[in-house]
């Protein structure tokens, strides 16, 4: 695939970069905190799913949307649960889509399904990177989270990935009920030692309708303490920076050069297509109109709203998806240019690199930034080019919703 030739997609126009995400909705078992769309088991549905996903990707390629794919991410769920089916999926996608030379191709995996032979096959098929859902190296914490693996299994999976030579990321969760700072410090230390070049660190958020929420409501687990989570987030920043993995996004740390490029597409307003049930897509309005016309989707007849970008999600159950991958309704949401600029500014402040003054001015948020600056939530510095750059402070990371909310809501009429 690396030698693929760019197809002729209309005379003279260069292909548009669109990243590709494939959602694999299978897991060994559901974790207690997870509200993603996935189901446990369903072995007999896995092969039909690969067929359906490839069919859907092929369908998108007709709109010239997969002619220049800078990043491909296969997430879930637990993609590696598909075993050889995943290898077939990767190969099929690389045949269907024109994935750019040197593209980042990430596969998500979990400890219980990380197998050395499978990893080797995936690398051979073109995968360049793995993301391993460890969450914790503490058995008690893993139990609270309802993970189906123990710390030993997580260590083993990390070793398999390290031995494969491919760069990998691991996910960690802090602020878990019952999790101690000692446990967290030990998990961080092990994460640094295990060979990961990228770390995602999330404070636990208790989602509606999850077993975790039910346990907390029933009183069998304590309510997560936000102060403890704050301490843990700070501890992560200190430990990971010292280990040569500085924070580059509110929840992401990496060795320089190992930042998650696919995620950066999300955070910098790039286009992406989602394949699979409940996968989200975002296109520019030009790209979207092309699709909508072809699909016969009707657009909102609101003349006052000129969309700049459109997001849509195929909301479909796995069963329906397998029967007719393309038939599900696709609710979409469009943002006008001002909203898109504000969204980019909001996402830009999730990044350590921040946003430039001209970007902030275009989004109409300079005044809001000045207020946040006064509250110590953002700071301002001069870039190499001499332009002012606004970036989130340590306290701003912890109170991220204040920062992001203020930026996003800056477009609405000011409060009295």
């Amino acid at each position: 695939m690396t030698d693929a030739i760019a197809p002729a997609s209309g005379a003279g126009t260069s292909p548009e970069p669109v990243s590709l995400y494939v959602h694999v909705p299978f897991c060994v078992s559901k974790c207690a905190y997870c509200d993603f769309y996935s189901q446990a088991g369903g072995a007999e549905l896995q092969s039909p799913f690969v067929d359906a996903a490839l069919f859907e990707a092929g369908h998108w390629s007709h709109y010239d949307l997969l002619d220049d794919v800078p990043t491909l991410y296969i997430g879930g769920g637990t993609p590696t649960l598909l075993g050889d089916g995943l290898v077939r999926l990767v190969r099929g996608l690389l045949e269907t889509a024109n994935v750019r030379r040197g593209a980042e191709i990430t596969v998500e995996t979990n400890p219980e399904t990380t197998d050395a032979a499978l990893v080797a096959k995936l690398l051979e098929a073109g995968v360049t990177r793995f993301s391993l859902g460890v969450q914790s190296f503490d058995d008690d914490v893993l139990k609270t989270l309802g993970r189906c693996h123990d710390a030993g299994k997580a260590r083993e999976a990390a070793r398999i990935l390290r031995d494969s030579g491919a760069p990998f990321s691991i996910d960690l969760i802090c602020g878990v009920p019952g999790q101690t700072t000692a446990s967290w410090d030990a998990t961080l230390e092990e994460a640094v030692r295990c060979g990961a070049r990228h770390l995602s660190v999330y404070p636990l958020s208790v989602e509606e309708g999850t077993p975790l929420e039910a346990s907390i409501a029933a009183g069998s687990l304590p309510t997560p303490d936000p102060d403890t989570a704050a301490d843990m987030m700070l501890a992560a920043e200190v430990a990971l920076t010292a280990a040569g993995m500085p924070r580059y996004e509110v929840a992401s740390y990496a060795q320089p050069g190992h930042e998650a490029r696919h995620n950066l597409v999300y955070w910098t307003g790039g286009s992406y297509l989602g394949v699979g049930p409940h996968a989200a897509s975002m296109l520019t309005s030009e790209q979207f109109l092309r699709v909508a016309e072809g699909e016969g989707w009707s657009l909102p007849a609101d003349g006052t709203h000129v969309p700049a970008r459109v997001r849509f999600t195929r909301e479909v159950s796995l069963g329906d998806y397998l029967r007719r991958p393309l038939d599900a309704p696709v609710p979409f949401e469009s943002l006008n240019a001002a909203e898109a600029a504000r969204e980019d500014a909001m996402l830009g402040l999730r990044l350590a690199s921040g946003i430039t003054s001209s970007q902030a001015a275009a989004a109409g948020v300079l005044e809001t930034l000045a207020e946040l600056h006064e509250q110590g939530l953002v700071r301002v510095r001069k870039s190499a080019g001499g332009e002012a750059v606004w970036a989130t402070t340590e306290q701003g990371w912890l109170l991220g919703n204040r920062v992001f909310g203020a930026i996003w809501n800056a477009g609405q009429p000011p409060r009295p």
Partner: protein
Amino acid sequence: MTDPTLIRNFSIIAHIDHGKSTLADRVLQLTHTIEDRDMVEQVLDSMDIERERGITIKAQAVRVLYTADDGVEYTLNLIDTPGHVDFTYEVSRSLQACEGAVLVVDATQGVEAQTVANAIMAMNAHLEIIPLINKIDLPSADPERVRHEIEEALAIPADEAVLASGKTGEGVREALEAVVRHVPHPVGDPHAPLKALIFDSYFDAYRGVVALIRVIDGHIAAGMKVRLMAAGTVTDVEEVGVRRPVHVPVEQLGVGEVGYLVTGLKDTSLVKVGDTVTAAKHGAVEPLPGYREVKPMVYTGLFPIDGDQYPELRDALDKLRLNDPSVIYEPESSHALGFGFRCGFLGLLHMEIIKERLEREFDLDLLATAPSVEYHVFKTNGEMLSIHSPQDMPEPGTIDRIEEPYLKVTVLVPPEFVGAIMELTELHRATFVNMQYLSATTVEMHYEMPLSELIMDFFDQLKSRTRGYASLDYEVMDYRASALVKLDVLLAGKAVDALSFIVHKDKAFARGKMLTEKLRGIIPRQMFEVPIQAAIGGKIIARETVRAMRKDVIAKCYGGDISRKRKLLEKQKKGKKRMKQVGTIEVPQEAFMAILKVDD
């Protein structure tokens, strides 16, 4: 005009929830005033709030035609009255328009406090009382016990009480027969100067103020010029008619008739409940007895959450007052809350209803401060101030004494809860007067108690401590001197005027402590530490701290999360909109009501 001997004017009176409105519905159906297919529940309660809450706020009158067992068609005027103690005066005026009353008692609940209060009011108005035991279709109905209670507690012979069910319609015809047979027909002098009683009024956007009236003497016809004696208003009669329940104009209303009067006036305060209508020329000399000015009992500050809505709030109050002249208001400004209005209401329910109507009918978002009563502050220089708001309290050094309104309170309760009532009333500074057993299952307890204590969550506490069995009635007694102090609340070192309240000296420490604790739970964590203090005259008596918020971030944010996250941020902002920004602190609305929920 209808022959007065064929008219029966009656009211249905009951304790709340005893089924008054449903019974009225059945009467309308039985007399074909409303056909079954047009029937909705609680026909006479036309406001949404009335239907939703199952209560009657406004009085209503409806004329029904009923052919009795004697083959004669009678004109019955049913006057539906509000069922809550807040509206006692309105009820008394409605009763004045009648000769009889059907006293509805729930067959499962028996006699309750407002059964007694309403029955006494009806007796004072010299009405013929027809007891009706309702809800006999319920399995737990015990008509014999209730019959006994009516006789014991009210001294009304109940052996002929009508047994009925508003739900099934059983007994409704018997009730109407009893009305025809036992309620006296109206008596008046058709040749005397006009005298008609106004028992309610409302504002119609097209026709101006419409009054509901009962003619005592003489007659009233369209085109006449009339004078409203207490208000001194002179106006033309644009139309008179009867309500069936739609308005049906008639040429004139004569002795004993009940109907409506279209005045064309634009100001409801000129048409007062209890006033007498007479002819402008050669009118009556003496008005009907019993009129009085309605005085508010509780006061609260109403502030728009969005300060820009102050003019809208003023317009809304102006408009609402057209329909309900018992609401009074004057501008009030607060350092904490900005511009708003100090409003007076007949009681807590009335206050709640008005706030809800303002928000609903005028699309406003309002914040109400804790209700207060009218204090009489006697200064050392001999001056007396009427204070409706803790903010207006003068410096302690200039005060000689403060007097507060006292109530006569009656509680009806099963004997096993007497101890619980004793305990609760003591916490609320009530003085026990006496008690008597009305029956083996009902004790009547009398207290004297400050109104300010009654509005302190007393009713909810009463209900919860007696598992809902206790019922309550009260009337204003007098003003008495009490050792009262103003308690201030400071947030981050600054006094928040809208949180101040007036409290008895002996309770100040406990309530200050409880309130600060409560506020600590209500005020969300801010970006900085917020000390909450309670103080009397600069002396801090309690302190709590809301720790600074350290973490507020949802870190996960990938493709599909972005929209979701944005929506969450929008929701968070909306949540904030419901809070009031006091200086740099975001204070939720409930903080201003917290003092009411402080249990001792």
